[in-house]
């Protein structure tokens, strides 16, 4: 009789493991950024639009917190989050850098003209190198970078007001003025 009890015991142990898995699963639906607590990768990229406008360097915001939003016109969820970004931009709390990822310049400019432009500045990452440096794996992604240039939070998926208030606004030091 003893060895026939083994299967049910093994099964119950497995069920326990699966239960823990289920409980943890909401945390696993998106990847945790490998850059949390590490300095944000430096970049210098061409700005969207007239080439004469030159490049933008990530050092420009040294000493103050800022937001990086990775997007593309080919991305459905980016369109979904766009109104939220516009509302966030109206709050004028933090500069938002738009990283136009693997996109076409004309499409991007048309999109911003049609839908509105929430970004303080838009840079073009047509080869995807900067996105890879940031560990981006799917648009849209939004990063909070603090005044020391350290990545403190990454949100994967369409931005919501709730996430903005909870994760981004909460991290703004009180001394920062818009």
């Amino acid at each position: 009789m003893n060895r026939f009890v083994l299967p049910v015991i093994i099964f119950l142990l497995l069920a326990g493991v699966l239960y823990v898995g289920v409980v943890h699963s909401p945390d696993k639906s998106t990847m945790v950024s490998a850059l949390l607590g590490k300095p944000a990768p430096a970049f210098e990229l061409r700005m969207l639009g007239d080439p004469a406008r030159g490049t933008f360097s990530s050092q420009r915001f040294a000493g103050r917190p800022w937001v990086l939003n990775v997007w593309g016109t080919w991305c459905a969820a980016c369109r979904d989050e766009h109104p939220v970004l516009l509302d966030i931009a109206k709050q004028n709390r933090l500069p938002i850098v738009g990283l136009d990822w693997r996109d076409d310049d004309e499409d991007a400019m048309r999109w911003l003209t049609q839908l509105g432009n929430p970004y303080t500045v838009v840079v073009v990452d047509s080869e995807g190198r900067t996105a890879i440096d940031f560990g981006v794996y799917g648009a849209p992604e939004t990063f909070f970078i603090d005044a020391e240039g350290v990545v403190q939070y990454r949100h994967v998926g369409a931005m919501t007001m709730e996430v903005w208030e909870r994760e981004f606004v909460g991290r703004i030091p009180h001394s920062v003025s818009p």
Partner: protein
Amino acid sequence: MIPELGHFALILALVLTAAQAVFGLAGAHRRDDRWQAAVRPAVAGQFVLTSTAIGALVWSFVNFDFSVLYVASNSNSALPTFYRVAALWGAHEGSLLLWAWILSLWTLAVAVFSRNLPPTFASRVMGVLGIVSFGFLLFALVTSNPFERIIPSPADGRDLNPVLQDPALAIHPPLLYTGYVGFAVAYAFACAAMLEGKLDQTWARWTRPWTTIAWCFLSVGIALGSWWAYYELGWGGYWFWDPVENASFMPWLAGTALIHSLAVTEKRGLFKSWTLLLAILAFSLSLLGTFLVRSGVLVSVHSFAADPARGKFILWSLVVMIGGALTLYSLRAHTLKSNAGFEGTSRDAFLLYNNILLVIATVVVFIGTLAPLVNDALGMGSISIGQGWFTSIFPWIALGLVGLVAVGIHAAWKRGRLGESSRRIWLSLAIGLVLGAIVVYGAYGPGKWLSLVGIIFGLWLIASSLFDPIDRWRRKLTLSRAIVGMTIAHVGLGVCVIAISTVESYTVERDVALGPGETLALGRYAYRFEKIDPVEGPNYDGVRAQVTVLRDGQPVTVLYPEKRNYWVQRSTMTEAGIESRWNMDLFAALGEDLGAGRWSVRAQLRPLIDYVWLAAGLMALGGGIAASDRRYRLKNEATETAPAPNTAGAT
């Protein structure tokens, strides 16, 4: 109105499954003839109601009823009719309804074909199936109602995931589910036997055809999924050891062990507790697969939208159904010992080794799939297991299995007497060695040595399997369907091993940048990129390239790989251009637009790849033929070994 009708039908079906379960199990236990007589009508009623529910959902899809949330999420006004129907199982809620409907179909089949079984036994089988149905319908109604409305209804739907807009989609899930769910019948037969307290050779004979047919469907379902992934999902890959693929492979492995174990139990009355355990295991793995795909516990290419609430519900049903069956097992299995003996080289022994290896294979896939989960649950850090782990272990097990079949097929029951067949065994091995060496060194050139071994073993198996049937045929002896089916299935296994060994070693693959007029040379073949044109479909637009394939400088065919943008979901799909020749596939897929008319192209020559899926078809064909063997269709078996129905089911 129609969706509400469907919803109501589903609720009624739930009630009837409860009745089915109660009348079946309690009726058998109490020996109450009236209660037992109510079971089949309950089954029929449940089938009609579930069919009504699924019919209502199909109606909603075909008629563009976007007020139904599920339809709005998975369909679109531009979606062709064929896919509107197939969209039914495109996401969680609908596919769950499909599961429940297929289960009611299997239960109906059991009700119809079980009239020659002892009444209490049949009632118990249907009662257990009633419990399973109840669980699934409850799950659907409580957490995954496909008939939920969305008010106000959107003007148009979100479209079916473009990945799923493909003919193979229409057949893959239903066939796969028919396999998965079919193992519930074996599970029910096992539970009924445990409840009766009796399991004999007759029981095995009843259970075999049901199990074999479910296994056939599962084999075809898995093969279709692999084929579909080949030309739709990946970039010419056909198996990724993805958790969802593994979730279907594990029941198949356990199911294979089960049908072989049933053979021993039927013939010799041995391995009874093994067979029981395997029957529970096969269905448990089906249920586990369902859990893994829908609970968000594992990340995968095609897992459904994650929802922990659903995960917990399924987990509880798992505990009830599997835990319950295994508890029964722990109480009853010890009474099933038999005193028959066999030698180490007997057929019985070979089937034992075979089953041990299959169980090990199942364990390997299981560990590889669930290790990340286990490590996470036990706080041991996060790991990920990729293809490399599986491909370094699995081929060895497969070779072991093939070798066992090649030899064991000649072993006699009980006393082996392999000496009488040793000539055949050695001769088939010689054939394998010679042909294998010729094929590899003559035709393909040196490759991975493991592939050489695989090809030799596969050829050995085929030759070995064909010896006896051909011999019997020449001597005009009877060739039962059981033997014919078994031979075909084993030959299928050999073909599969040869095909996989070949394609893994001799695939030629290059990613290159090509512009119009530019050519890529691949051995005797060459791919010439002619041009690229815009293309438009009912719900997509994109580009289509024209690639001429040349052999020895002469054009032999043209491939048309496409890259499509589906408007509604704004996602991009690559449609490979594939031409299947008798001995290889010519494959081309578009990568990136590199500007100035140049594109990155993935070109592949895939030798023998179609035989991988053909082999699965052979295995299913063999199983089907074997399951239709005369002895399963004889009607008057009811009282052969069963004691008088009114004696208590003593152990």
